[in-house]
């Protein structure tokens, strides 16, 4: 039996933004194939991917259309079949801003013909380099919004020999309910992915942080079905910022990620459940990442739904799939009320980072108010999940006191916005903090660049070293494993694997 328990460690600050009881489930369906797909060549700050196709070329679903140079960088795939009609700069939502970046535009042909799937790459049988390569080739990235390459994250985790794999199913912003759909309709994808990644990491403890208002039964059954009985489902409060990576890690393990460090420094690797499901698809079924679940919701729409959406689908096609706008539609927001990005129009496409499309009514939005002086009420201090003093940070940011900002740990701010929404003086705190961070980085530009170049060099050297060790280990570990394993268990495992391979992939319609 999979253990279900409540979180042992407390949550600090945060806001109760969601109902404390389960909400009625949303319909779960496949979004219609859009006529046009817009796939940005850039998904986060950094270099743009190199197109692997030319304008006019026909592409199939799952065909790689762009890739980056790094060995663990995620590739980009056509999310349906059709013709490349343009490779041109277009506005897309990237990392909390609308930027104009080169995009590959595909006119779909409606046939949705796919490339044949790749052979499975089960971590229980394959060596680690092959697994990481497959994840990168299949374009798997963090689907919780960070879109960091999963292969790169796992390479780090292997190098740090992490002892804990955390699955994040604690989505905590209102209106973001894509993981909820995944958990109740496709829990087996999560379980299979979790088993594969646990095998890859050498059997760490597996903790699943599940929002307490979500039903744990489907996931429990799925985990038991794949033999992951030792996994633990930890119920976490339905409270905002419980789902932020660093906060969830502390909630589940009591460990804190060092300020300038990574979760792997404290033996943890944390992946969103959707990412784990996508990794499972890539490894066990040979399927690249071409779609994701997006919650389309809000009083500005005729109805709400969780849609399985091809990457690159323009927002307008999704709102149309939900019956179009009502006269309450006042803003189109990609994400939730706390960290979502307001879109200037609905031609912008869904990316791997898009979790929800929220068409808000005026009543749901904060009307612009006159800013008043800080009255030091401390409401912001009470809600800050990382124990900062927002009112002090604000004062220092305004006076441009870099040393004081450093001493008050501006860098630890996760820009969650809790302080901002409780401030009775309507001070735009988060905006001030974002600007101050940018300015600080700019001011330290010179030495930063030197540090950055050095770290890049070191990272490359480390990566090469890592690859070498991995290669040396691989035969040895495979041999060891076979030697250790009981022959009957081995037979059972091979049988089980054949069964998994036979089950039809459940991508899409429930």
């Amino acid at each position, binding site marked *: 039996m999979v253990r279900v328990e409540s979180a042992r460690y407390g949550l600090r600050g945060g806001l109760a933004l969601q109902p404390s009881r389960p909400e009625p489930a949303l319909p779960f369906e496949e979004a219609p194939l859009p006529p046009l797909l817009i796939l940005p060549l850039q998904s986060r700050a950094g270099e743009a991917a190199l197109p692997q196709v030319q304008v006019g070329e026909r592409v199939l679903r799952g065909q790689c259309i762009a890739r980056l140079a790094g060995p663990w960088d995620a590739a980009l795939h056509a999310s349906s079949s059709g013709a490349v009609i343009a490779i041109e700069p277009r506005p897309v939502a990237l990392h909390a801003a609308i930027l104009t970046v080169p995009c590959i535009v595909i006119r779909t042909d409606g046939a949705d013909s796919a490339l044949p799937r790749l052979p499975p790459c089960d971590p229980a049988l394959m060596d680690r380099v092959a697994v990481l390569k497959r994840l990168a080739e299949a374009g798997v990235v963090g689907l919780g919004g960070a879109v960091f390459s999963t292969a790169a994250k796992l390479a780090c985790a292997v190098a740090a020999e992490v002892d804990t794999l955390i699955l994040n199913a604690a989505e905590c912003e209102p209106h973001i309910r894509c993981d909820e759909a995944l958990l109740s309709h496709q829990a087996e994808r999560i379980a299979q992915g979790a088993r594969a990644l646990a095998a890859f990491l050498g059997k760490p403890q597996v903790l699943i942080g599940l929002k307490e208002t979500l039903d744990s039964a489907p996931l429990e059954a799925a985990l038991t079905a794949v033999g992951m009985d030792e996994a633990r489902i930890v119920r976490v409060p339905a409270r905002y910022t419980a789902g932020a990576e660093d906060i969830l890690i502390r909630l589940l393990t009591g460990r804190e990620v060092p300020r300038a460090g990574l979760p792997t420094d404290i033996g943890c690797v944390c992946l969103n459940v959707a990412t784990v499901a996508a990794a499972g698809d890539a490894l066990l079924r040979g399927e690249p990442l071409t779609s994701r679940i997006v919650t389309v919701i809000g009083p500005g729409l005729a109805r709400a739904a969780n849609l399985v959406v091809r990457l690159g689908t323009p927002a307008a096609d999704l709102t149309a799939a939900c019956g179009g706008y009502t006269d309450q*539609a006042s803003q*189109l927001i990609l994400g939730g*009320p706390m960290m979502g990005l*307001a*879109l200037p129009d609905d031609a912008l496409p869904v990316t791997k980072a898009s979790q929800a499309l929220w068409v808000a009514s005026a009543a749901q939005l904060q009307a612009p*108010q006159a800013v008043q002086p800080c009255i030091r009420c401390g409401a912001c201090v*009470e809600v800050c999940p990382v124990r900062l003093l927002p009112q002090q940070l604000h004062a220092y940011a305004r006076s441009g006191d870099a040393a004081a900002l450093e001493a008050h740990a501006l860098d630890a701010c996760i820009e969650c916005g809790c302080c901002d929404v409780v401030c009775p003086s309507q001070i735009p705190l988060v905006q001030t903090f974002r600007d101050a961070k940018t300015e600080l980085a700019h001011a330290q530009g010179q030495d930063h660049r030197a540090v950055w170049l050095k770290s890049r060099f070191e990272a490359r050297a480390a990566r090469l070293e890592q690859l070498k060790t991995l290669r040396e280990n691989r035969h040895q570990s495979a041999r060891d494993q076979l030697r250790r394993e009981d022959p009957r268990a081995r037979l059972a495992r091979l049988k089980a694997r054949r069964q998994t391979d036979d089950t039809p992939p459940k991508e899409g319609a429930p």
Partner: protein
Amino acid sequence: MTAFPTAPAPHGPHARRVGWVMTQVLLALVPGALTALAVRGPGVAVNLALCLGTAYLCEAGALSLRKRPLGPALRDGSVAVTGVLIALALPPWLPWALPVLGTAFGVLFAKHLYGGLGQNPFNPAMAAYAFLLVSFPVAMTRWPAAAAAWDGALAWKAWIGADMAWDGLTGATPLGHVRTQLALTHTLFEIAEQGGPPGARAGLLLNLAYGVGGLYLLARGIINWRIPLAVLGALALCAFSFQVIDADRYPSALFHLTQGAALLGAFFIATDPVSASTTPRGRLIYGAGIGGLVYLIRTFGAYPDGFAFAVLLMNLAVPLIDRLTIPRPYGTPDDA
């Protein structure tokens, strides 16, 4: 394609506004103000009117001198809270010029000289009170005896500052009474035998009324529990420790918690956000400091009650407290 307006995150939910917060504080003061009116007589209403009027006039004057927009500051209600707190702290038989003078001092000197809302290091209401107490010690300790509180003629004479003998018409507050009796080497037991300090019931009632308002503020999340709890906790702890040492000379914790400005001070004065500490641990220290000082002043100082001086002294310590109690940010080792 449909276009939409954009705005930076966060997009909601709605925050409380300063004006709403101050309105809630004023609302929470209603039971206390009504009780004060009942036990202290019409002077309370006159003080309220004088203080509120002066507070608004001074605020408007200071703002226009500083060339600031009047609307938002007058509407946010913070100056009303200052005025009401001054009025409720004053004795009811005061020449009319004193509330006016005190409030003007509080608003102009303690608030606007430092840069207005949010900038003042000292609690303006307590600065005003302390200013009056030091400058007019006789008038400021003239509390009507229970029987004379609602005597209109006497009240009138007090307001216009008529020259007359007040002896016999005034009575000490319970804290003052106990203090004088103890100084005459009576024991608490003897005081209790003579029926206890006069006015103790009224004092208890008044404190309960402020307590109700304070609980309302706590329940609505307007004030945080740390400061009031620390003030009352420290006051009670000091009283209890001394009572254990000598129950004949040191009144009980209950007496201290229900007399004088205890609950008004803990819930409404010490919690003034601007001049209080803002860190969670700092608030505990700040509150405990006030509670402890109040006890010391009441027991060993020159005044029967000491909220104003305790608050002002702790206001002085706030920058230091804040600096020493910066919380450890997430992901930072303890020794950093």
